[in-house]
């Protein structure tokens, strides 16, 4: 069970008509470093033409550029990051993260970690984990370039988070996933339904472990760049029924989460999650969860 026809047929059953995506390059301003620097004007003088992304506070589409936006002085000085537009959404959904203890459980290469630190104005603390040591160099470079001072990085498996002995106010779970065809042109030939199922299982394991380290009434933002409901709505339905988590309403673009997946009826609250089918952005799924009070 693989191949383009198989997956496209699934998407049609879920209500989306396949279309070739037209993703656009996006950047995100690091306010802590760019404040008062007239960044837009400086980039314009280098031939970088930007357009505000209407659904993001600090995001811009790169319309055209005479230079590589990954090699300007402003980039190297940490004033902005290159970050896909949909990927800029999850970190913005936490309620008041300033001064909090935040876990970024699957952090490398660090785009969302840096964004979180910026949203926290470098207050509080972020514990950033990644199980793959080779990816930590990119994460560390990103933190150094953007002069992030509130983050500690461990080569650590999110499935063992309780070993840190910490309780977090906020947890970002941008979990390992199957990805989607927008960011990987060979995706349809690489992926099978077995991969999807394996990733969905891993995601549940990470959820189960990290919830143990979430303070009462703490928040989790769960996100994937997968279009497959096993990794998204089905996992959220499972989490509400098994982990004493509640799905919270969010206010941003995208479609409601699916509540009927291939004939399986899910908890109605799953529709509060958001699904972005590929268009200007890559495909993405986001859900905000809180830990119910008086639970184990």
């Amino acid at each position, binding site marked *: 069970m693989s191949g383009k026809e198989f997956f496209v047929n699934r998407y049609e059953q879920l209500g989306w008509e396949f279309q070739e995506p037209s993703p656009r390059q996006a950047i995100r301003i690091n306010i802590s470093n760019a404040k008062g*620097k007239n960044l837009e004007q400086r980039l314009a003088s280098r031939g970088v033409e930007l357009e505000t992304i209407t659904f993001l506070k600090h995001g811009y589409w790169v319309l055209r550029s005479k230079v590589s936006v*990954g*090699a300007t*002085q402003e980039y*190297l*000085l940490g004033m902005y990051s290159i970050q896909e537009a949909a990927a800029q959404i999850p970190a913005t959904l936490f309620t008041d993260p300033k001064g909090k*203890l935040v876990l970024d459980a699957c952090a490398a290469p660090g785009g969302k970690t840096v964004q979180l630190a910026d949203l926290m104005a470098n*207050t*509080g*603390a972020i*514990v950033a984990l990644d199980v793959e*040591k080779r990816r*930590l*160099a*990119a*994460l*560390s*470079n990103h*933190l*150094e*370039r953007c*002069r992030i*001072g*509130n*983050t*500690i*990085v*461990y*080569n650590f498996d999110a499935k063992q988070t309780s070993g*840190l002995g*910490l309780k977090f106010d906020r947890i970002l779970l941008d979990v390992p996933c199957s990805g989607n065809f927008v960011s990987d042109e060979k995706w349809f030939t690489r992926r099978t339904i077995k991969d999807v199922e394996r990733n969905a299982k891993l995601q549940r394991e990470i959820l189960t472990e990290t919830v143990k380290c979430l303070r009462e009434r703490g928040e989790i933002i769960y996100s994937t760049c997968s279009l497959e409901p096993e990794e998204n709505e089905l996992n959220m339905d499972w989490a509400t029924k098994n982990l004493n988590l509640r799905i919270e309403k969010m206010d941003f673009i995208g479609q409601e989460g699916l509540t009927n997946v291939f004939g399986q009826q899910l908890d109605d609250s799953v529709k509060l999650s958001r699904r972005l089918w590929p268009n200007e952005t890559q495909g993405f799924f986001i859900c905000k969860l809180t830990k119910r009070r008086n639970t184990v």
Partner: protein
Amino acid sequence: MIKPVTDFAGRLNAKIILNSQFVVEKEGRYYLLKSELRSIARNGFFYAGLFLGKVKKHKFFPSFVLLKMLAETEANRIIVDDKAAWLFICGRDIFGKRITALHGSRRKGDYTLILNSFGECLGFGRIIGDIDAKTEVVVKNVSDVGDFLRREK
């Protein structure tokens, strides 16, 4: 604990005040941890707080975070024009005619920070010639922020 950092600052004629309680050395790498991180830091971290630099083969290599901190002191510095700023982050040296301002030492062999026209620190170099010699390389590039790109390759 913080001697390599303060010694390096001294080579730029700068003084830096760091609370040694908040500086952690791990495998030759120096990190400045704020109190919130200090209280939760466990052994075996990979990276923490502000990276100040590393000692390798008895030599200290400053981070760009530290260079920025030093740029906010009275450290030696030269400001270069836009063309030289671009060439510098590509790893090139500085010609005398590209210097628009200088603060601190002009002495051969001394370190100096390199700043762009916005006053932002792009790295540092070593003075190797007469600063007033317009057509010669006068500052040799030691380290520049273009290193972030070179590391990824």
